[in-house]
C-alpha cells in the first residue's frame, strides 16, 4: 500500500523478477479459472452455434458452424421449442421478480430481529433460521412434496380458515389468473389470449407463477433467507453504535433510525445479497430437477432446467446451449443494471442543499 508506484516499473535490483513470481504464484488460480470457467463458457458458446449432436467432443472437428440457427429455432418460428423457451423465460422471470425482493426483505428482517439486544436466546434463533440453508435443497424438496400434497398438511391448515387449497404440484394455473377468476374474470380478453411473445400468450405471461412454481418459490425463500440473514448480521455488527446513538440524541424514532441510518450503511451488504439472490434465482435448477421436471403445463420450466433437458434429454445440444448462453447474458445484464441502481451516487448521503459543492472540513 505504502509502496511508491514508480518502483514497480523498475526491472533491476531487489525487485527483479517480482512480476514473474507474481505470475507463477497466481498461475494455479489462473489455470483453474481458465479450465473450469473460461473454457466451459467458450465451449458452450461454440456448441450453441454448431450442429453438435452429443457424439464425441464438440471440438473433434466433425461438427460445423451453423450460425444463429439454434438461437433462431428457440426464439422464432412458432414451434414447440420456441414455446418452451418462452415458458422457461416467463417462469424464471416471475421467480426472480418475486423471490429476490421477498428473500432480501425477509432476511434483513430476521437479521435485525436476531441482532436486537432485547431478544433472548439469540443464538438459538440464529441457528434455527440458518438451519434450512445447510440442509440439502433436494431433501427439503422431498419434504415439500409431502407438505404441498393436495391432501397434505398445507391444504389441511388452509382448510381450517375456510380456504380450499389448490392441487399445488399439479396445478398449472397462474396465481394471478386464479385471483382474477376469483374476482369474476374467468375468460382471458381476446387481445391478451390471441397475441403473445415467444409462443406464450400475453395472458399467460401476466398470469403469474403457477401454484406448482409458487410452492417451489416458497421452498427457495425458506432455504435461502438464512444464508442472507447471516450476511446481514455480519453487516449489522460492523456498524458503529455511535452513529445510532447520535440519531437517538437527535430524536429519531426507531423506524427513522432503521430507514435513514442503518439501511444506508448496509448498502454494500445489500448489494451483495441482491446480486447473489438474482444470480441464484436465475440459475434455479435443482428444485425443478428433483420435483416437477418442467410440468404441469410447462409452468416450472426454468431456463437452467431447459438448457439441461433440451440437451441431455431431448438431444438438442445446440439449442440447449443457446438457452444456457442467453441465460448467461441475462445474468450479466441484470448484475450490471443492479450495480448501476445501487451505485454510490455522489449526493447519496443527501447533504443539505446550501452546502452543496462545499468540501466538508
Amino acid at each position, binding site marked *: 500500500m505504502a509502496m511508491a508506484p514508480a518502483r514497480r516499473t523498475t526491472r533491476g535490483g531487489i525487485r527483479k*523478477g517480482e512480476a514473474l513470481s507474481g505470475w507463477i504464484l497466481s498461475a494455479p488460480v489462473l489455470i483453474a479459472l481458465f*479450465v473450469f470457467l473460461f473454457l466451459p463458457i467458450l465451449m458452450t458458446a461454440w456448441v450453441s452455434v454448431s450442429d453438435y*449432436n452429443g457424439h*464425441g467432443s464438440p471440438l473433434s472437428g466433425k461438427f460445423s458452424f451453423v450460425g444463429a440457427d439454434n438461437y433462431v429455432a428457440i426464439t422464432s418460428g412458432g414451434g414447440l*421449442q420456441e414455446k418452451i423457451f418462452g415458458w422457461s423465460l416467463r417462469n424464471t422471470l416471475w421467480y426472480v421478480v418475486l423471490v429476490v425482493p421477498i428473500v432480501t426483505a425477509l432476511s434483513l428482517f430476521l437479521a435485525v430481529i436476531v441482532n436486537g439486544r432485547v431478544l433472548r436466546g439469540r443464538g438459538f434463533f440464529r441457528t434455527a433460521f440458518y438451519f434450512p440453508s445447510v440442509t440439502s435443497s433436494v431433501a427439503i424438496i422431498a419434504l415439500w412434496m409431502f407438505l404441498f400434497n393436495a391432501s397434505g398438511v398445507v391444504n389441511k391448515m388452509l382448510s381450517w380458515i375456510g380456504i380450499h387449497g389448490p392441487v399445488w404440484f*399439479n396445478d398449472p394455473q397462474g396465481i394471478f389468473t386464479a385471483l382474477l377468476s376469483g374476482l369474476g374474470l374467468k375468460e382471458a380478453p381476446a387481445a391478451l389470449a390471441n397475441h403473445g411473445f415467444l409462443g406464450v400468450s400475453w395472458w399467460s405471461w401476466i398470469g403469474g407463477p403457477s401454484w406448482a412454481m409458487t410452492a417451489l418459490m416458497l421452498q427457495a425463500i425458506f432455504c435461502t433467507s438464512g444464508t442472507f440473514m447471516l450476511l446481514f448480521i455480519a453487516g449489522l455488527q460492523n456498524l458503529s453504535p455511535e452513529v445510532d446513538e447520535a440519531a437517538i440524541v437527535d430524536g429519531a424514532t426507531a423506524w427513522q433510525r432503521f430507514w435513514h441510518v442503518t439501511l444506508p450503511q448496509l448498502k454494500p451488504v445489500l448489494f451483495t445479497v441482491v446480486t447473489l439472490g438474482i444470480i441464484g434465482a436465475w440459475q434455479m435448477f435443482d428444485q425443478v430437477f428433483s420435483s416437477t421436471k418442467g410440468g404441469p403445463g410447462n409452468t416450472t420450466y426454468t431456463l437452467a432446467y431447459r438448457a439441461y433437458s433440451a440437451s*441431455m434429454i431431448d438431444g*438438442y445440444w445446440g439449442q440447449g446451449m443457446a438457452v444456457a448462453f442467453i441465460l448467461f447474458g441475462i445474468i450479466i445484464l441484470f448484475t450490471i443494471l443492479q450495480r448501476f441502481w445501487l451505485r454510490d451516487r455522489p449526493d447519496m448521503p443527501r447533504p443539505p442543499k446550501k452546502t452543496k459543492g462545499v468540501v466538508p472540513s
Partner: protein
Amino acid sequence: MRKNLGKVWGAAAITLAVTLALAGCSKTTPSTTTAPPAPAPSTTAAPTTTAAPTTTGAPTSSAAPLTILFGSSGDAETNAIKAAAAAWTAKSGIPVTVTPATNMDQELAQGFASGKPADVFYISPGALAANADAGNLWAYGDMLPNKADFYPALVADYTYKGKFYAAPKDYGTLQLIINDDLWSKAGLTAADYPKTWDDLHNVAKKLTSGNVTGLVIGGQYERLGAFMVANGSNLMSVDQTKVTATDQSNVDALNFAKSMLADGSMKFAADISTGWGGEAFIKQLCAMTIEGNWISGAMKADAPNVKFTVVPMPASPTTGKQGTLEFSNGWGIAADSPNQQGALSLVEFLTTTEQQIAFAKAFGPTPSLQSGTAQFNSEFPAMKPFADGVAYAQGVPTIKGASTVLGDLNNQLAQLAKSDPAAILASTQTELQALLG
C-alpha cells in the same frame, strides 16, 4: 541463486501442470490403444471413432472388457443382470462390469460425449432416434440370429430410418386392472368384465360411489392412446413417416374419454391428487385403472392385501377391435465400443429365451421373444393379458423431438374435460409434422 533455482522449478512445475491440464482436456487418446490385438479376423485397421459409418460396417473386435449401464428398478434387477453377466463371462472369458445408473439418460449422454460410452446399455425407444442420428448407436439388429422371433411391434420400436438398431429386451402393454372386492361389492361378476367401451362406461358408472371413482387413469397420451389404437389410428403411422393425429378416429377416442370424465365415472389421477393410476388403485380410490405389468410390483410392495384381476382392454365399438399401447426397453450397443463383437455376443446371450425367462422370474419383465410367451404365460397366468396384448399393441411416437411434443400434448390432455379434443390433436399434428420436416 537458490531463489532463482526455486523459480525455475516452479516454472517447470507450472508448465507441466498446464500441459497436463490441456492434455486432459483434449480428446487425443484413440480408443484402441488399450485394447490388445484383435483375435478375430474382422478388424482391419479401423477403430470405431469415426462418426457416420459406424452404424454399418464391420464390428470392432478385441478382448477388451465390457461394461453394462442400465437403469435398475431395484436389487432384484441388478442382481439378475450381474448373474447373467457372470454366466456369460464364464463362457466367453471376457470380463463384464455391471453398473446400475442413477440417472440413465444423463449418464448415457455423458458417456457418448466423452467418447468412452458403456458398451451395452438399456435404451428406450424414445431415446433411439436422437442417439441414432448422432451416430452413438451401432445398428446390429440384423445380425441377431433370433431376429425373426422378436415381436414385430417391438422390432418397429427399434427400427429407425430402415435400420434395426437394438434388440428388444422386454415389454409391457396397458390392460384393464380391476379391484376384486370393489367389483363384487357393486354386484358385478366375472361375466360383467367389459368387452366394449360401452360396457366399460356402464361398469365404471356402477362402480362410482362415495370417494371411489369407477376408472382412474393417468391423464396423458401414454394411457389415452390405447383408445386411439383401438379406434384404428394413433398419432403417427406405424412406420412413423406420416402424422395422423387429426384422424377422426383419434378425435372420437378422446371424445369417448371426455364423456366418461363428464359424468364422473372416470377421473384423471392428478385430479384426485395421485401421481398415477396405480397409486389411486393402491389407495382404493378407484375400482379400475389402465396400467401395465409394472403395477403388479407396486401392488406387491404397497398393497399386498388388495386382490385384483387383469382383464384385456375392451374393444372399440366402431372397429370392434381391441387396442393398446406397448412400452419396451432394448439393449443398445455403442458405436464407439472397442469390442462390438463381444458386446453382440453378450446381447445374444441376454436375449435368449432361457435368459429372458430367468429375468422374468427374477424381476418380472415380459420376454420380447414370441417363443418365450407361452412359457411366460404358464409361469405367470395372472399376467397373461399383458403378454398377449402385444399382438394388438402399438408403440408411442419416437421420432427425434417426439417426447417434447408428447409432453405438450399431455399438458393439454390434463385439461381434456374442458377442452376440444379436435383442437388439442390439431396442435399435436402441427408439432409432429414440424419434426418430420
